[in-house]
């Protein structure tokens, strides 16, 4: 499982003098790298505490206050949370967001995995890799604007295509049934290459001799994919999934530029609602409570994901 659980017996390297590492100076005990680890983790930890933890604590504190950004915050105890529980817009937002995440990540992962496998097996051309990654070069906002136009009911080439094919035009961003899948599709377009590249790096770490051995044994491609690729890709896939889900939950730019939460709350995702409360309505205390709620959801989801995918372990070692 974890890497440095080398059983003491193979570490017959009690050998040479180590310059700094505590590990070698102790010959029979398990290596303890605490001092070194602290050194290595220190810069990242500074960033963590200063720019993530401190704001997090402050944000949690604010969720118990009423604050309008421009005058001092007043403590109100659990009022914000009581309001949250009975807030239909919040529950709608939570539901819509979960629906969106499922669609988005589901499609994105499958497509990205497919692309990664194709990149690994078909061709290692870096031109192709570059093209596939290209959508990530376009900012969120611009991508949303471009698709807003391409999928416009009347003027969009997308609907024009539908008409040529003899189908009805679809209000992609303007009907309640289509709006969330459309926003999910826009984000899939933008992120599939990025995700594919990450998975590709993971695929590359799988030694080819496994495949060779399996082929010698007469396994089919599907069997190899299932028994070799997937298990060995699991740690990378797991972490990519976790990060994608977390990012997907916090979708904002795409929605804000295309629908602003409409039509009629059908695309009012959590982050959109939070921003509106925080910066437009100057109700930062309540927005903080909403954010804490979102955080809790994310923690729970991530926890289960981490367990299910056993992303903390590697099968290669």
């Amino acid at each position, binding site marked *: 499982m974890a*890497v440095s*659980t080398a059983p003491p017996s193979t*570490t017959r390297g009690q050998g040479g003098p180590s310059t700094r*590492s505590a*590990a070698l100076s102790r010959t029979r005990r398990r290596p*303890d*790298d605490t001092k070194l*680890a*602290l050194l290595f*983790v220190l*810069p*990242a930890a*500074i*960033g963590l505490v*200063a720019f993530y933890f401190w*704001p*997090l604590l*402050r944000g949690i504190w604010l969720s118990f206050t009423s604050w309008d950004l421009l005058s001092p915050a007043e403590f109100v105890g659990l009022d914000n949370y009581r309001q949250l529980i009975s807030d239909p817009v919040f529950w709608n937002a939570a539901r819509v967001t979960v629906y969106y995440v499922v669609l988005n990540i589901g499609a994105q992962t499958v497509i990205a995995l497919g*692309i990664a*496998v*194709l990149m*690994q*097996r078909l061709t*290692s051309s*870096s031109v192709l*890799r*570059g093209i*596939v990654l290209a959508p*990530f*070069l*376009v*900012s969120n906002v*611009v991508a949303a*604007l471009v698709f807003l*136009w*391409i999928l416009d009911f009347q003027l969009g080439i997308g609907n024009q295509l539908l008409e040529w094919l003899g189908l009805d035009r679809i209000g992609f961003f303007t009907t309640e049934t289509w709006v969330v899948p459309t926003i999910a599709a826009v984000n899939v*377009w933008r992120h599939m290459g*990025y995700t594919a590249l990450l998975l590709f790096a993971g695929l590359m*770490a799988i030694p*080819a*001799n496994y*495949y*060779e051995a399996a*082929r010698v044994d007469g396994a089919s*491609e599907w069997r*190899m994919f299932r028994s070799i690729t997937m298990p060995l890709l699991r*740690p*990378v896939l797991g972490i990519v999934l*976790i990060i994608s889900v*977390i990012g997907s939950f*916090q979708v904002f730019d795409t929605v804000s530029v295309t629908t602003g939460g409409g039509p009629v709350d059908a695309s009012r995702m959590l*982050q959109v609602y939070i*921003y509106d409360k*925080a910066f437009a309505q100057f109700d930062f205390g309540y927005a903080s409570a909403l954010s804490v709620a*979102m*955080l809790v959801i994310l923690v729970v989801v*991530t926890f289960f994901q981490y367990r299910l995918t056993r992303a903390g*372990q590697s099968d*290669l*070692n």
Partner: protein
Amino acid sequence: MSDVQASATLPVAADRADDDRASGRSPGTGSGGTGRDRQARPRRPIRWGKVLAWAVMGVVLLVTIFPFYWILRTALSSNGALYANATSLLPVDPTWNGFARVFGAQSVEDAIADGGSGAKLDFWRYLGNSVIVATTVTVFQVFFSAMAAYAFSRLRWKGRDLVFGAFLLSLMVPVIFTLLPNFLLVKQLGLIDDLFGIMLPSLFMTPFAIFFLRQFFLNVPKEVEEAALVDGASKIAIFFKLVIPMSTAPIATVSILTYMTQWNDYFWPLMVSYTDDSRVLTVALGAFRAQSPSGGPDWSGLMAATLVAALPMIVLFSIFAKRIVANIGFNGIK
């Protein structure tokens, strides 16, 4: 794993995989792009699998490229004629004015007449600022993240999992929590309107890079590390001389993606910059978006700006892509 020889023959194995593909037997080919529908008929001699795979790849490329074509076509059109010919596949009333506006080469009156904003753009300066910010952040962020990833993957210490969990938690911190405190901190440090102020929150690490690299560092074979330890290398030396070189591909991947993310970052640099001194390209390109409540964007300028902003990244990628290719398949032994 006593696969020393096997991995040494890896590039050859890839070629052999090519031959295998020809007979439709390479792994994964049959999985297609949109799902793992089985094409698993290993004995079918026709390259069905390969044909299908290329077809799927073709569709993916088409879907990926078409919006870019649309962006290019709109960038070369003039704003006034766009609405009248909204679905035309060719640029309408072709003109270079969109690009001229991006580079600040069009006079204010002409720009306004064309539908652009009257803002003056100091393009090269913004480009330079973007390069400085993205490069600096990428270098430091990836380096520090790699260090932390090493500590989480290859070092043993008390509380390792707890601290790792803390980093995982940081990934979920809501954006509105970090925005104002970071801004206040930057102001207190006197770094408003300074490139360093823009860089500061991202300089130390990003949780994503830590996790991603940790997964790869986990895969570095224990035997190699132990062999190095036997030889008297310190853990620090192992980090620099063993783990990092063996992980060039994931590090390069993470670096490129970090660079792109920093390059396209909009909101934070917008907050921190007040004058051209610290304005980066993406913020400057905000000049092409809708300037008034119900106005539309300067379409041709915006599309031209998108292409121009993406260009340096394409250049960067094409330089580094070769490095990735040269190192693919390396799984660490020798």
